């Protein structure tokens, strides 16, 4: 009953293969940047690590497919944004919150508006994700819409609501972007 070349007779899905060196290299090279993106998305270190790990795990399993598209980082960033706004994210967040000590590490080092950073915590995940994609990732509303799987109108309304809550004046109503 040898199936040494072909896949196993009784299993449709084989065992997960060990991750290749290319993937581990990718994690070594880009892990830091991805974690920081996760930090901006989630607002705390614990969630950032959780989000980054989950997305990287999924990338690792899909590596052979993704690599061909040549944009593994885009894949991970998309996964992270989607996870962040998904039910998965909210459930995990609820579970983690109790165990996570408040990290104030950022405050003394933050080059920016500490008060604004704090207020971002009050935003619903989707609104926060839209802001991060727009102002940190520099994506257009169309790109954000595609990435999150929502309409461009939703992106704009979510952004508008979030900006309003944060008392941020929008300089260019047409694009919603600052030059």
């Amino acid at each position, binding site marked *: 009953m040898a199936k040494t070349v072909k896949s196993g007779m009784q299993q449709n899905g084989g065992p997960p293969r060990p991750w290749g060196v290319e993937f581990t290299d990718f994690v070594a090279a880009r892990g830091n940047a991805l974690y920081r993106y996760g930090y901006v998305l989630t607002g705390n270190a614990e969630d950032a690590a959780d989000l980054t790990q989950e997305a990287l795990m999924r990338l690792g399993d899909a590596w052979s497919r993704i690599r061909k598209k040549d944009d593994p980082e885009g894949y991970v960033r998309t996964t992270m944004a989607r996870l962040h706004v998904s*039910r998965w994210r909210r459930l995990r967040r609820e579970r983690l919150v109790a165990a996570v000590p408040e990290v104030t590490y950022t405050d003394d080092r933050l080059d920016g508006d500490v008060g604004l950073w704090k207020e971002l915590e009050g935003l619903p995940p989707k609104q926060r994700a839209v802001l991060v994609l727009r102002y940190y990732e520099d994506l257009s509303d169309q790109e954000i819409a595609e990435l999150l799987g929502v309409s461009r109108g939703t992106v704009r309304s979510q952004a508008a609501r979030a*900006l309003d809550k944060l008392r941020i004046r929008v300089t260019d109503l047409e694009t919603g972007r600052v030059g």
Partner: protein
Amino acid sequence: MTYDRSEAELARTLTGAADAAPPPVGDLLAAVQRRRGRRTRRRVQSALAVAGVVAVIGGGTAVARGFFSSGGGEGQTLSAATATATATATATASAGPTEAAEPRRVAIRPAAEVWPAAVTKIPVKAADGWRYRPVTGLSATELLLVAESSFEKAGRLEVYDTAAGTSTVLADMPTPEGVKGYFVQDVEAGAEYVAWWGETPNNSDKWADFWVVPRAGGTAKQVGQVTGDLSEVERIGVTADSVVWSAAGGGIYRMPLAGGSPEKIAGTDGLHLMSWPWATDVAKEGGGEAEQKNQTKVVNLETGQAAEVNVPAGVQGLRCGPVWCFGKEKDQENDASVVQRVDGSDRKSPPDLSLWGGERSLARGFGFFQISGVVGRDARGEEIEDAQAPLAAVYDPATGTAAGIGRRDPSGGGSYGTGTSSSPTSILYWDEGQRQVEKCRKVDATSVPHPPGEPVPTGKVTSCTTTTEGGGKELTVVNLLAVPPTE
């Protein structure tokens, strides 16, 4: 409200926060691997790349952990990563729930309690030392076995009488003359004949052959040989006058037992044999996305009747026999399984049963599921597992009865086999004496592979491997043909 902030300030704050993010705790890659280990523990893996035997890997993964630099760029975090790995393992093993009371248990009882008449033990080897590989039940008391002279090298067919506890040879399985590297693949028990096909899997020749022997026993006869796409045999069947098979790319063919040319059965483009005369529109093997496809029809090749499957929204990997379908919900965080009739009626989601690939359909319309054993989460969000839960279950969709298969090691792992017949098998088996053992040792970090370009790590790391020990005497076998009828 005063709009006292600008978009530029927001952008600067986000970038600033990213730069000022506290360094992550521990090593990212090691953490990703641990996370994958926790998940894969709940998934079925094949320990051996062979027919029918499936191993569930218990806690921890067989990888060396923690020797890559941290995401923060602070250099080596060897000790931290190793410590985290150890701490995780310890917590999972001993901590248990901190706030919940007694965790619930998986309610599925072992098959020996649910269907005692269907469970029996057989020796793992024949008197001459050849190992048995169970194929399927022929009746409530007869098991069709393949005896292997060496690993996966099928040499003869035997019928084991579970009432008498004896085995008789049905036929030898010869290697066709002049063929090197020949291996028998699937065996199929038809009403009058037992048939099988073989190929040379380790070379690139597109070639296969078919054999039959009467069910009463005798000398096996080669029916014929095929080449090209026809030789990509997926499943086979045997009728009173033909062998039938489907090719991996779809299409069902037949060849007369008396010999002759293969011919395609009309109207079978895109169809795949399931169990003669039943065919489906999904391929047997695929893995990944192909496996998640839903079956949309069930075709009877004798009558030409085709039934459309009523596929509910949010379901994937639905596979149907003539009556029942088994699949799972799309939601990745929810392991819920889906059971229904072909027409969509009697839909249910039996508790504790998961589908992680592999066989779904068994003989007599029974379903086959894995049991994750996860019964809840502790205060830290870690999964709590029922260490006594069986590894898998046979599910009777008509009555909702589930019978446990396999024995879970304390590590959470274990293995079981499914009969290797081409049609959905009636045999599940495992070795009660076998244990999975994880062995960890401290090794010098320099002996462990690390990515090129990274500094060579120093110090000691923990390297773990999982092996099996014990067993090798008897197989516990569940023969579904011996399950008492419910109606």
